[in-house]
């Protein structure tokens, strides 16, 4: 409309001299720019499109030399071409970029010789060219995508011929694009999988397919692949787009996992938590329970659970697994095919959104059996121990009863002998008889009675010792932190007179605390001090040292004397029951160190001894320190 208006305004004759009015109107309407130059390059015609493209009105241009109106175009390709046609009278066409504002554009120009001079038709093609460039660029982009895709891409015809491939395909299988183009899909498939589901000729795919296959490289090696095929229509042609991914790494990981799954001694399973059935089980199930995989899969697992464990198993399933909580160390019994039961300890992790649970069970039957056996042995041992203590107790009691009689009647006998002697003194017997009776009454009988009595009292001492020993093994221990400085002071106080009597020097250094039973520990140190005192060397001043240190988690106390010492060969024997190194030294029944070792055994302590004959002995007792074993 604007053109018409424009044309009307300026008048037909004015914009194009010497052209028929009808033609002029048509020319004014066309979308190409159109103008006519006479031989002097003066504009004689200038249509509406030219006005718009070149931003000059016909009135300004008509009658003017073109390059006066557009000085920017002087010496440009435009002037050259126009003059060329003007002279040669041969039409020409060219396309050019004009770089001077405000005319920066692509121009497609056709120049014809005409009667007056030349006729010029032109179009501004900048937009079209940009669209073409964009199109070109976008095709390039898809080419790059195709080439650079990490997955191999094959374009295949329905008859299985390979039409195109990308760089990844060449990298993956080792063939060049040209080589691929002379091959068929079947050439790439490993014969062993050819014909398997999904590996059928790709043209047979109705819509598409997704499957795993095995391809052969140019070098003959095989490569596990994942193939995603889809059908496409391109220019009335049916093609297959096949995207092939190398899954060697994934396959390897899968194989490793499968290997572990198969090798595991534990029972690994995947179960459906809604139907409570096995979906997958590993061979350990067969090894442990004896059922084949087929006998287990799809079967409710409660069918295999011991009747007494069904309730707990159901509860664990309902309350834990179905609510998404993992189960740890759940114990139940599974029936073997042979009819026996195995104790299984389960760890199970459910994925409720998938409706499955992943479980690992360990056969703990032997462990349970060992535990029961241990408990049984412990009970048996405790019974034996009680029995033994009872034996010791009864024996020492019942053995003492006859001793009361032996001692009692030997004394009664002594009284009787005294009475007899008094009677004999009163009656006068024959001198021979008196001479004969004297050694009997004064020596033989008293001697015999003496041995009977001393033996009885020695036996009594032994029995009392046995009784004490049997008592040291029982009674509840009260384990508490012990201030050893205080405890040793009490031990010394109770035996102080013995030390003063013997003129013994006693050195006690600061002692670390420990944990133990006060009464029992007191007994230990009383016995050790008593021994140290008893076995001092009478030829020199007795010195007894008590010291203590902490060694790691143990408090170690040493009682050191300068006594007679113990011969190396006797060191092992001193802890033996009733063993006395030197029975002539004071009283005692040879139980002191036996009791010491027994008490320390109950308190988690230990004792060791170092000694040198003639120099002295050193007993070191270790007990748990006060800081640990809270």
């Amino acid at each position, binding site marked *: 409309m604007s053109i018409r208006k424009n044309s009307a305004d300026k008048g037909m004759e004015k914009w194009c001299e010497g052209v028929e009015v009808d033609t002029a109107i048509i020319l004014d309407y066309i979308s190409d720019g159109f103008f006519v130059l006479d031989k002097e390059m003066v504009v004689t015609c200038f249509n509406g499109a030219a006005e718009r493209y070149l931003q000059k009105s016909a009135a300004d241009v008509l009658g003017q030399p073109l390059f006066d109106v557009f000085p920017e175009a002087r010496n440009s390709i435009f002037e050259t071409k126009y003059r060329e046609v003007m002279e040669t009278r041969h039409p020409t066409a060219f396309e050019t970029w004009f770089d001077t504002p405000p005319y920066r554009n692509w121009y497609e120009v056709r120049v014809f010789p005409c009667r007056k001079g030349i006729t010029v038709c032109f179009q501004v093609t900048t937009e079209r060219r940009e669209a073409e460039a964009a199109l070109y660029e976008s095709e390039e982009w898809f080419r790059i995508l195709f080439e650079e895709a990490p997955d191999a891409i094959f374009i295949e015809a329905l008859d299985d011929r390979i039409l195109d491939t990308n760089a990844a395909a060449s990298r993956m299988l080792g063939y060049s694009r040209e080589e691929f183009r002379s091959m068929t899909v079947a050439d790439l498939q490993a014969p062993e999988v050819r014909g398997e589901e999904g590996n059928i000729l790709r043209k047979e795919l109705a819509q598409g397919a997704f499957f795993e296959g095995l391809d052969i490289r140019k070098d003959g090696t095989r490569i596990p692949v994942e193939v995603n095929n889809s059908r496409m229509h391109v220019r009335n042609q049916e093609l297959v787009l096949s995207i092939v991914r190398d899954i060697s790494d994934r396959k390897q990981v899968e194989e490793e996992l499968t290997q572990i799954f198969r090798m595991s001694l534990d029972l690994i399973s995947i179960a459906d938590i809604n139907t409570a059935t096995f979906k997958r089980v590993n061979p350990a199930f067969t090894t442990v329970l004896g059922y084949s995989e087929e006998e287990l899969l799809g079967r409710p697992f409660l069918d295999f659970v011991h009747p007494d464990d069904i309730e707990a198993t159901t509860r664990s399933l309902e309350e834990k697994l179905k609510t998404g909580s993992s189960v740890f160390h759940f114990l139940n019994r599974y029936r073997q095919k042979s009819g026996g039961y195995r104790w299984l300890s389960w760890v199970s992790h459910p994925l409720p959104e998938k409706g499955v649970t992943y479980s690992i069970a360990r056969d703990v039957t032997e462990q349970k059996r060992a535990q029961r056996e241990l408990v049984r042995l412990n009970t048996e041992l405790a019974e034996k121990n009680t029995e033994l203590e009872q034996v010791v107790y009864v024996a020492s009691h019942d053995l003492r009863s006859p001793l*009361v009689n032996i001692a009692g*009647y*030997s*004394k*009664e006998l002594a009284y009787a002998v005294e009475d007899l002697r008094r009677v004999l003194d009163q009656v006068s017997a024959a001198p021979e008889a008196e001479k004969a009776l004297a050694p009997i009454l004064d020596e033989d009988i008293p001697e015999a009675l003496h041995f009977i009595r001393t033996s009885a009292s020695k036996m009594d001492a032994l029995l009392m010792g046995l009784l004490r020993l049997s008592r040291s093994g029982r009674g509840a221990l009260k384990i508490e932190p012990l201030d050893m400085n205080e405890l040793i002071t009490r031990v010394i106080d109770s035996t102080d007179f013995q030390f003063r009597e013997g003129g013994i020097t006693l050195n006690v250094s600061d002692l670390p605390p420990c944990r133990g039973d006060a009464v029992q520990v007191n007994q230990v140190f009383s016995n050790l001090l008593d021994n140290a005192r008893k076995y001092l060397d009478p030829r020199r001043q007795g010195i007894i040292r008590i010291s203590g240190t902490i060694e790691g988690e143990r408090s170690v106390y040493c009682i050191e004397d300068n006594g007679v010492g113990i011969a190396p060969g006797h060191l092992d024997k001193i802890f033996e029951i009733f063993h006395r190194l030197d029975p002539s030294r004071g009283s005692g029944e040879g139980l002191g160190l036996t009791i010491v070792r027994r008490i320390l055994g109950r308190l988690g302590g230990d004792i060791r001894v170092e000694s040198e004959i003639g120099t002295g002995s050193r007993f070191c007792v270790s007990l748990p320190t006060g800081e640990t074993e809270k």
Partner: protein
Amino acid sequence: MHQDVVILLAEDDAGHANLIRKNLARAGIVNEILLFRDGQEILDFLFQQGDGLHREPECAYVLLLDIRMPKVDGLQVLERVKNDPELRKMPVLMITTTDDPREVERSHALGCNNYITKPIDYDKFVNAIRQLGMFLAVVQVPVINGKTGEE
């Protein structure tokens, strides 16, 4: 102690019984002494059961009781006696070879009136029995009537 009080001695060891008897006599105790050789015999006597001798009603007794005896031991006898509302008035003295703290404790818990150990050392034994004699000389022994709570 009144002359009429009868000393009941339950002791399975005849030697011990004899020594006790001798030394009680030396300590000036001249009361009648009845000897029982096990726990069952003394129970039969006290509870007036079985074929043997039964106790007389309205009579005063002191019981000297050994612990380790055949059939029924001294602690069981002590328990039966002290659980009987009538017999429990009777003084019971444990005389035994053991000084096991558990048995001493148990005897006292059951209500024994005294606990004497029989030492092997005869001088100490004699001394212990002499002290028993002194105890018996001063103790007031109640008369036990004919009925026992158990019957």
